[in-house]
């Protein structure tokens, strides 16, 4: 089966600019996750969608980050305006279900550098 797709793979921007990342989950997976992975740390969940509804965005900095999952398939994550501390790898993952422990499948990630 095709895996989780993400684009772009790399992005370099200056602080205060905006940026958007795109994710296409595995077909049939209802749950989609966005993680932020700062160098030297494990991935941190930013937001979790079940179909097109948000089920957890408690760690999303909502003053600058936004995410949507229209039609319950693809998703975009936006940062506006970016700060230096947003430099990280942004990972998208999907799973079949979210109401019980389930394997998450990860995309290749987008490496963001904010100058």
């Amino acid at each position: 089966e095709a895996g989780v797709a993400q684009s772009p793979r790399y992005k370099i921007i200056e602080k205060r600019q905006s940026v958007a990342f795109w994710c296409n989950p595995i077909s049939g997976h209802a749950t989609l996750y966005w993680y932020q992975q700062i160098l030297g740390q494990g991935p941190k969940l930013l937001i979790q969608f079940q179909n097109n509804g948000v089920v957890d965005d408690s760690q999303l900095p909502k003053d600058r980050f936004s995410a949507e999952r229209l039609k319950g398939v693809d998703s975009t994550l936006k940062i506006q305006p970016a700060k230096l501390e947003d430099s990280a790898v942004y990972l998208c993952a999907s799973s079949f279900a979210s109401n019980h422990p389930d394997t998450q499948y990860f995309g290749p990630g987008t490496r963001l550098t904010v100058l």
Partner: protein
Amino acid sequence: AQRVTQPEKLLSVFKGAPVELKCNYSYSGSPELFWYVQYSRQRLQLLLRHISRESIKGFTADLNKGETSFHLKKPFAQEEDSAMYYCAPQSGANSKLTFGKGITLSVRP
């Protein structure tokens, strides 16, 4: 607060040596426990989960509820085991996955 700790950042062993990657967690309730792995230039992927009780690539993980630990073990390390390993408890109504900081395993020839 829920917390997962991987106390070491790096473990370097020779091929054929035993490996133990430590993971301790502090959670209310009974989380499901996972180990994820990231090989060089590859995606983060599931290695094994406690509920499956299986051995993957020679690795096993024992849950010790008394010590709240879920250490990953392999009796004889191979060079292809070199990777970044993350312990990740999963719990809550939405099955939230929380990753540890990870440990780099380096297996030398």
